């Protein structure tokens, strides 16, 4: 009988049963795209496919900086060494754009990545080059640490999200805990009120994150499978709030992961076995 899907003990119980049933093994680590409290997320849908047993480490709100820490990577590496998964699923980087910042206690880090509104400037020019370069360097370093620590055990599936939306939508957890919005207040504080410009700026940021991951796949083809999720979700329909898809949206994203596991993973595994 099923238990609460967010509970780590329940997740381990499920994984043990899936192993005994002979399902292929995966390890997952990540943020709310793998562990979204209000409704089923990518991993929940993958878990329901009846093909994979998934040893889950993800936690909603987690940052790449934390996931790439020595202690966390050591914990996952020892599990991967023991469990011998076919792949490691990894979702990170999003929350690193929304950490607290001391100079604007009510806003998130993304505020630093934005320049004040200037009607003469393009969306790309509204991105603070210095702050964003620093963040991209942090993200790349974090992903490289993950690849270095876990890549030897199994190919790692990475994604760079779809285009976030500055909708200003809040979210409620457990019926009473509010969270967000994460993006719109920072945009408004910078004077960026035009919805089309907001969307174009977010497009620049998400494209850059995806370029980092695509480059990592090129550099480490035996360790990284980059899953491009851009264009998967319909704006305004498949987003529950600014940074999380609806349940149907997560299901669409899961299909991309499923396709990558079925169609692309075997090729990478063959290459790894050949070397």
């Amino acid at each position: 009988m099923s238990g609460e899907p967010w509970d780590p003990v329940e997740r381990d119980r499920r994984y043990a049963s899936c192993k005994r049933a002979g399902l292929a093994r995966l390890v997952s680590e990540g943020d709310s795209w793998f562990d979204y409290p209000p409704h089923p997320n990518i991993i929940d849908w993958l878990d329901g496919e009846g093909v994979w047993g998934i040893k889950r480490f993800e936690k909603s709100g987690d940052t790449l900086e934390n996931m790439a820490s020595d202690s966390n990577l050591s914990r996952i590496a020892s599990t991967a060494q023991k469990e011998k998964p076919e792949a490691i699923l990894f979702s990170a980087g999003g929350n690193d754009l929304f950490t607290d910042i001391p100079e604007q206690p009510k806003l998130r880090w993304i505020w630093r990545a934005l320049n004040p509104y200037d009607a003469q400037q393009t969306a790309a020019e509204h991105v603070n080059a210095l702050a964003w370069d620093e963040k991209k360097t942090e993200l790349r370093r974090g992903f490289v640490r993950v690849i270095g620590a876990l890549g030897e055990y199994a190919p790692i599936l990475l994604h760079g999200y779809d285009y976030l939306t500055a909708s200003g939508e809040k979210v409620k957890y457990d019926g009473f805990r509010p969270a967000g919005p994460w993006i719109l207040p920072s945009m408004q504080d910078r004077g960026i009120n035009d919805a089309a410009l907001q969307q174009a700026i977010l497009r620049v940021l998400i494209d850059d994150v995806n370029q980092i991951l695509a480059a990592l796949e090129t550099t480490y083809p035996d360790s990284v499978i980059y899953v491009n999720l851009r264009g998967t979700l319909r704006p305004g329909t498949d987003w529950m709030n600014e940074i999380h898809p609806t349940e149907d949206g997560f299901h669409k994203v899961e299909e991309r992961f499923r396709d990558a596991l079925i169609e692309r993973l075997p090729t990478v595994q063959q290459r790894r076995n050949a070397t």
Partner: protein
Amino acid sequence: MRHLSSRQAGVLLVLLCSATPVASQIRVPDDSIAAFVAVESELLWRNLSLADALGLRSGVAYPLRLPRIPLQLQVDGWTALAQRPTSGYGDQYAFTVHYQHILADRPHPKSVVFGYVEYWNPNVGQLSPRLASRTRELRASALADVGIPSEGIRTVSLRLDVARDISRENATWIRGAASASIGATVQHGETDYSVSAIPTIAVSMSDLRGPRASGTRPAFGFHSADAELDIELRTRWPTESLHSSTTLQLGSSIRAERLGANIGWVGIRQSFLIL
């Protein structure tokens, strides 16, 4: 065989090609080994007082891991910790065989569970020498998980139990229950701790006489309305196969007059799960 038009053939081809085929999908039942022991302020079974004493509850569940026939064996005990009863059924022990049939897998699982139970009440002769100390029961349960995404509630577990005594009482008992879980997980070193509050509401109907009553069988009708709250601390060691849970149980029940006065109870339970 009916021939397909070119349009129908086209649609069929699109359908066949649109989804990545998933070779072998397996519905995975819960097949963990579990054990628990609890001390409760009232020795209750289906809100009937078995004895006016503190109760020791205990149980062990052991799966028979047969391919395609997921059977679970379970032994449960209700043991009075103070004076042996002279008016209730007294100590009770039960042996159950369950079969779970999964109708839908995650993320919204639905299943039905069929069971056969053998009860043994070694002290029942003190209540009436004519009462048999053993009885049998057939049981069926329907379980379904639903969510309320707009309220941030991931899972509401719905459960309908039907049980029919086929030996001593020939009585029927039906209970509908809904529970949800609110909680958080904290990682400390290698260990994950989760704390959760699990409220449950239930209403039941029966034609059970109650252990203190005699005479003609009552008409089938209201049995009890229950509200329970479990406060649970679960500990997960990611690389270990043993997990533990400690639960503070608070319960209250509005009972049909034939079952006795309304009642409130507290309990503390320690559970172990072997994966």
